């Protein structure tokens, strides 16, 4: 290779922050034509942001653009929209399908790029009245499918296709673009069966042989090793490793992915695992149909008074567990609390059985955004338990007990250090971290026996994180409330929980004490990933 040769893609010193929150730092990456790069990292490591920058996603330019330079074939590029990126020969297959459900594969592959035939009416009224050239469409789609090397029925409607075929349709769409030189595949195998995934890997090899460069994002490390030339590992916005795939192995990659705190080694002092504690909550064969977080056949026992952490990668089903138990999504199986069966698909029954839930969807499910803090804190307790009410005429007339409501709200404002002007302030005006504290206060005010907390620190800053976690721990230790905490951050689970269950592929892949090493937990996370 001569020195003048420019690589197909070069990224230099890529930086990105979202409003001061640094998510990418000094990423340098070089890719040759036909090379296959495996990009791995935990959720939130910055993989998606990096790919969004490369693909010109509009939310990058809307949040102030990025730092550093991108060169494509030696030419400096900076895409403002995905259309510019596509024009330049970059294709991306997203995790969510971008397909028209009632269209055939062919129509989807050539969506908005259909070959057309002109006619008299179109001459007068403009080219949108050209008729579609169905024959040519079939031929081009067939060619793209052939390029992919996996056969799918090009006349099948998308909504009658198995998931894998939808994925292949998306890939064929990218391949049908003649200018395609770089293809980004974002977890394409997540929805595929083993056989289909194998076919996809084969097709990646085929693309590479045709000179198309592929960036392959996946959590299935074995796939990376079998198909990629290079592996790049990201962690906390930094490219921590870039090695040829032939020189590494699954264990090593896992270590790089999760290994941030090996040195720090969060020393755990306060872990209580009481083997003899009574099982307070028994989940048996639970399934939950939560889109994107499907739970399949989960059986789990929660001991009285513990903090059980539930971790796992995004999309593996950890969020489905509390949402299913609390009746927010269709669920089946059995949940036994304190010897009593809890009916599923009925949020009210769960609340009546002294369950409380702090949802990951803080603004949607968690808060009454346009009401005061007092209302937010006291509302569920008022609704569910008839507390903070004064009864008149023998309970016929119920009046809000404003004084009691203010007292309890102020108590929690104080305890959780909620930053607000007064207990009458509207929830919408608070920052994310303080909103989260209000959600906790609301759940605490219910005085539950079991508290489900889902992603308690999502989208809040470091200082607030520590406070929220401390508050949770204190609530558990002082009132003996059993806490089930779901989080994508292993570190957070290790520092707060007593035991950690890891969900992978919708199932529990293992339960370990919180003192276990990050590597052990990481291995569980990647096992059985779908």
């Amino acid at each position, binding site marked *: 290779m001569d020195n003048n040769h420019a690589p197909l893609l070069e990224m230099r010193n890529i930086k990105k922050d979202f409003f001061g929150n640094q998510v990418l730092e000094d990423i340098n990456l070089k890719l040759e034509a036909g090379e296959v790069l495996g990009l791995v990292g935990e959720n939130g490591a910055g993989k998606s942001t990096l790919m969004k920058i490369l693909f010109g996603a509009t939310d990058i330019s809307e949040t102030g653009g990025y730092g550093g330079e991108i060169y494509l074939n030696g030419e400096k590029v900076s895409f403002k929209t*995905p*259309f510019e990126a596509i024009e330049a020969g970059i294709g991306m297959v997203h995790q969510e399908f*971008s*397909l*028209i*459900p*009632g*269209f055939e594969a062919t*129509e989807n592959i050539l*969506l*908005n*790029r*259909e070959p*057309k035939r002109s006619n008299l009416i*179109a001459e007068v009224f403009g*080219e*949108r*009245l*050209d*008729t*579609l050239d169905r024959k040519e469409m079939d031929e081009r789609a067939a060619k793209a499918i052939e390029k992919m090397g996996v056969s799918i029925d090009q006349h099948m409607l998308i909504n009658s296709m198995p998931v894998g075929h939808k994925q292949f349709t998306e890939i064929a769409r990218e391949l049908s673009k003649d200018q395609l030189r770089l293809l980004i595949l974002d977890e394409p195998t997540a929805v595929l069966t083993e056989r289909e995934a194998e076919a996809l890997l084969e097709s990646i090899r085929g693309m590479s042989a045709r000179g198309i460069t592929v960036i392959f994002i996946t959590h299935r490390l074995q796939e990376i090793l079998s198909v990629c030339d290079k592996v790049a590992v990201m962690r906390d916005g930094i490219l921590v490793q870039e090695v040829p795939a032939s020189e590494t192995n699954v264990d090593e990659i896992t270590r790089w992915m999760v290994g941030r705190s090996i040195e720090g080694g969060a020393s755990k002092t306060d872990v209580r695992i009481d083997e003899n504690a009574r099982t307070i909550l028994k989940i048996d*064969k639970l*399934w939950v*149909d939560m889109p994107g977080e*499907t739970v*399949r*056949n989960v059986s789990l026992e929660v001991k009285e008074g513990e903090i059980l952490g539930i971790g796992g990668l995004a999309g593996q089903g950890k969020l489905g567990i509390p949402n299913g138990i609390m009746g927010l999504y*269709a669920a*089946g*199986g*059995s949940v036994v609390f304190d010897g009593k*069966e809890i*009916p*599923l*698909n*009925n949020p009210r029954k769960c609340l009546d059985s002294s369950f409380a839930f702090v949802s990951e969807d803080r603004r949607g499910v968690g808060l009454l955004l346009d009401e005061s803090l007092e209302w937010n804190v006291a509302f569920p307790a008022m609704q569910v338990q008839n507390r903070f009410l004064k009864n008149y005429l023998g309970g016929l007339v119920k009046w809000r007990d404003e004084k009691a409501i203010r007292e309890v709200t102020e108590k929690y404002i104080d305890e959780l250090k909620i930053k607000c002007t007064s207990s009458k302030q509207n929830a919408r005006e608070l920052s994310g971290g303080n909103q989260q504290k209000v959600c906790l206060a609301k759940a605490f005010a219910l005085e539950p026996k079991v508290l489900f907390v889902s992603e308690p620190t999502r989208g809040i800053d470091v200082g607030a994180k520590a406070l929220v976690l401390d508050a949770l721990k204190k609530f558990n230790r002082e009132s003996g409330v059993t806490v089930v905490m779901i989080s994508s951050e292993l570190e957070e689970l290790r520092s707060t929980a007593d035991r950690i269950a890891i969900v992978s592929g919708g199932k529990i892949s293992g339960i370990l004490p919180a003192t276990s090493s990050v590597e052990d937990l990481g291995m569980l996370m990647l096992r059985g990933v779908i």
Partner: protein
Amino acid sequence: MKAGSNKYTTSEKKPTAIGMILRQASVPLMFIIICAFCIPIAGLSPSYLANEIVTRMGRNSFLILSLLIPIMAGMGLNFGMTLGAMAGEIGLILVSDWQIVGIPGMVLAAIISIPISILLGIFCGKILNKAKGREMITSYIMSFFINGIYQLVVLYLMGSVIPIKHSSIKLPRGYGIRNTVSLLRMRQKLDNLIAINVSGIKIPVMTFIIIGILCLFIIWFRKTKLGQDMRAVGQDMEVARDAGIDVERTRIISIVMSTVLAGIGMIIYLQNMGNIATYSSHSQIGMFCIAALLVGGASVDRASIGNVFLGVILFHTMFIVAPRAGAYITGDSMIGEYFRVFVSYAVITVALVMYETNKRRAKSESSRELRAQQDADEARAAGKGNV
């Protein structure tokens, strides 16, 4: 399995293919039964009934066909057509003042109505783009609003600002249009242009030819790039936008096409009636057209040309026979009149409810699949354990 409280247990069986077809065709079937029940009671002669149905097919089909394009673009059952109908009426009022009669009058009225329809369509489309997913109610309310402007124009501006010469259509006070504008010299001119008589049934061939041309146009339009874009936008706006289709513009075009066609359809409708009820002709036309389309088996997101014709036949058969049957049973002819209005609203309500139920059913279907999958997994695991 053991969980008795679980509502997704196996008692719910997978719907069979026949069940699916029956459910989809339930509204047309219901109307076939009503008609089959009412026809003998009404005691109308078959030739009278056939004559009436053919006349009404000629009168209404074009208007109903104008609803198809917005449905294709995912804008649902749309009252935007009411705006087009008003434009058509304005065209006809002006033409009858200018004393241009017969077919040339109709053509001129259509030419006048088209720019008005386009303007109203663009306005309507822009507003509906701000109310995605709520097109039906938004366009319904908007048709009341535009009706107010129409009244302003017809009641105050015509005769004072817009010159109106003939006193036969002007209110005695000197401005404003009378309640009824006679189209005597235009009456059924199109229908009679080529009319043949088949065993006592008058067939307005020319009207049917025009309707046929519109059908061919719609079939052809589906094959165009714009038609394909509309279908894409109708099914998933986000995906269409990601593919580079200008979603907003496509939706506006579909509404404009609908209002323009509705304007022409209204002219055809009124030439058959022979007079314009200036302040009420358009007011219920949207609802009756939508009801007829739904009776033909269409739904909020799917409608075909076949639905249009089946709907016209069934809905109007009911219209013709219900008052007679009602009069025969109760001795009061008002009951039939009441029944037809009541049924129109009922049909629309039922169709909307069914649309929502079907959506929900599709959702619980995925739960059921998940459950079945888990059971199968377990059975397999158990099988392995035994071996």
